[in-house]
Every structure is written in C-alpha cells, then in structure tokens.
C-alpha cells in the first residue's frame, strides 16, 4: 500500500467509487449525439452556402452574365472542397489515452499544429480562389461598362479589405501553430 506524503491528501475522496458501466455507455451515446449534431450544423451551413451561390449563379445566368455566373459556380466548387476537407479532417480518430502522458500530450499538440498549419492550403486557399474569381468577373464587367480605371476605383477597397482579412486569419493561425510547435519542442527537450 502506498504511503501518502501528505496525510490530508489521502483523507479526501475515501468514499469514491467507479461509475456503473451502464451509466458510462449512456454517457458515450450522449457524446456521439453531440458529435452528430455538430456535423449536422456544418452540413446545414454548407447547404446554405450552396443554396446562396446557386441562386446567384442562376440569377447571373438568367441575366446573360455568364462570366459572373461561372465565377459563382466556381465558388460553389471551392466551398465543396472546404466542406470535403472539413469532413475528412474532423472525422473521428480513435484516441489511445493509455499512452504515456508525454506521448499523449505530444500527439495532441502535433495534431492541432498540423490542422492549423494546413489552414492556408485547405481553408483559406480555396475560399480565396473563389472570391478572386468573383472579383475578377466583376472587374471584367465594370471594365466593359466604364473602363479599367473606373472598375479599379469601384473595387480596390473591397479587394484590399478582403485581402487584409485573409492575411489576418492566416497570421492568427500561423501564430497559434508557432506556439504549438514551441510546446512540442519543449516536450521533446524533456528527458
């Protein structure tokens, strides 16, 4: 039997006992329901994006604005890529909490680091491509109507704003990923 270095410590929780396996199973079922609900919300948001861009594509095509319609259709494809990546990356991965604490902690940090480091490729990249396509289509349209100078005058502010927003999101993710990398290095340095 273990000797407790601080006797007060041992006096706490003497009456504790393990939960009944039936209770645990219902807890696991509740957790699965939460995951399913979260996935459902993601799919609903995706469906909303598809519906919105679908309506815009249809409206532009009806008005004979085929360049703009194509840009919106391209946006739908970009959103589909992001949703596919979300589903692939967010899928349930079996955890093995019986690993040593350091191995477990390193694995958690590594997974989060890779997810954050990949954000520009799988999230920001496709969305930026879709938005660039829409802005390009708008520029072409405005240039036809009033010339390039007029088109630039009307679009540079939203383009700059969008670029700044994307740069900010990229920076946030990069900073968080860098912090995690530092923690991983600290774990690796422990002996």
């Amino acid at each position: 039997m273990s000797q407790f270095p601080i006797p007060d410590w041992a006096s706490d929780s003497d009456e504790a006992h393990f939960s009944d396996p039936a209770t645990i199973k219902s807890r696991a079922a509740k957790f699965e329901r939460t995951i399913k609900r979260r996935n459902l919300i993601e799919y609903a948001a995706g469906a909303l994006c598809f519906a919105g861009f679908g309506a815009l594509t249809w409206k532009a095509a009806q008005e004979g604005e085929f360049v703009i319609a194509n840009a919106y259709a391209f946006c739908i494809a970009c959103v589909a890529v992001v949703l596919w990546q979300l589903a692939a990356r967010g899928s349930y991965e079996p955890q093995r909490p019986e690993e040593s604490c350091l191995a477990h902690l390193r694995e958690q940090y590594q997974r989060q680091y890779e997810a954050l480091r990949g954000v520009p490729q799988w999230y920001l990249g496709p969305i930026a491509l879709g938005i660039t396509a829409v802005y390009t289509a708008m520029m072409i349209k405005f240039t036809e109507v009033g010339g390039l100078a007029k088109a630039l005058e009307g679009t540079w502010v939203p383009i700059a704003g969008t670029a700044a927003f994307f740069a900010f999101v990229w920076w946030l993710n990069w900073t968080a990923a860098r912090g995690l990398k530092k923690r991983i290095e600290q774990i690796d340095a422990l002996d």
Partner: protein
Amino acid sequence: MSKQADLYRQAGEQFAASLARLARAVERDAEKALDLEQDIHAALWSSLSRFDERSSLKTWVYRVAHNVAADHVNAATKRPKQVPLEDIGELPSPADPETQAGRSIILAQVQTLIRYLPFPDSQVMLLWLEGESTKAIAEVTGLSPGAVGVRIHRIKKLLAAHFTPSNNESEHA
C-alpha cells in the same frame, strides 16, 4: 463477467479514490470535477478492451486518467497562468470557497498549486501525492526517472519551505 468488466471492477476497487482526487485537484468547480471523473471512468472502460498486460493495471489506469484530465485542462477556456516548478517561489492562495467547503487549508493550497503547474509537473506532483515511486511515476508520465526525481525534489523543497510547524500553527491560530 467479461475481461473488460472484471478489469474495470478491479480498477474501481483500487483506484476510485485516487481518480476522484485527481479530478478534484485539476478542476476547481465541483460539478465539473464530477463530470471529469465520469469522463475518466468512460475513457478507462473503453480503453480496458485493449488492455494487453504490457504495463501493469496501475500504470494503465493512471495514464488514461491523467491524459483525460490533461485534455480537460487544455480544452478549458479559463485557467490560471501556469508556472513551472522551478519558478514557483510561494504556494498560491486557494480561492475562498475551497477553504469554506470544509477542506483543510493545506489540502486547498496543494490543489491550487497543482492547477498552477504545467504538464508534466502537475502529473508528477499528483502521482507523488498518491505515494507512487519515482519508477512508477516515470512509467506513467514518460519522463526519465532522473527527471522525475528532480521534480519530486523541487516539490518537497517547496512544500517543506511552506508547511513548517510554525506556519501551520499560525494558520490554525
């Protein structure tokens, strides 16, 4: 009874109190601590279907429990700024509700200290408080016995400096 259920029963008989103490130490809120305790039970139940006897049941149970607790702490939005053992000069003061809840000041202070420590310092301290040996702590945490020894030495020094007889007398006065 299945092997999994039998192992779970054995683990419950031997470690229920330790795991309850672990949950209460890392989570100050009593309801959340109870929730964490049940999360640990659930993770343990699932993991025991994979138990391969390459480690002892004790090592397995502690690893699962500490890893679930670490995930709980990492997921928390609010937690105290963490200070490594080598940088702690004084024990942090416990929050009032903890001392008012009938726990001794020493116990409340030790639990508060654990919440301030980063991983794996807090895990080493918790296992040391459970009376585990350096070797056992090294197996659970993955640290070398030498690294565990250094941390235990720091913990003892910190506690000895604080819990001197005169200090305890003045606290009870």
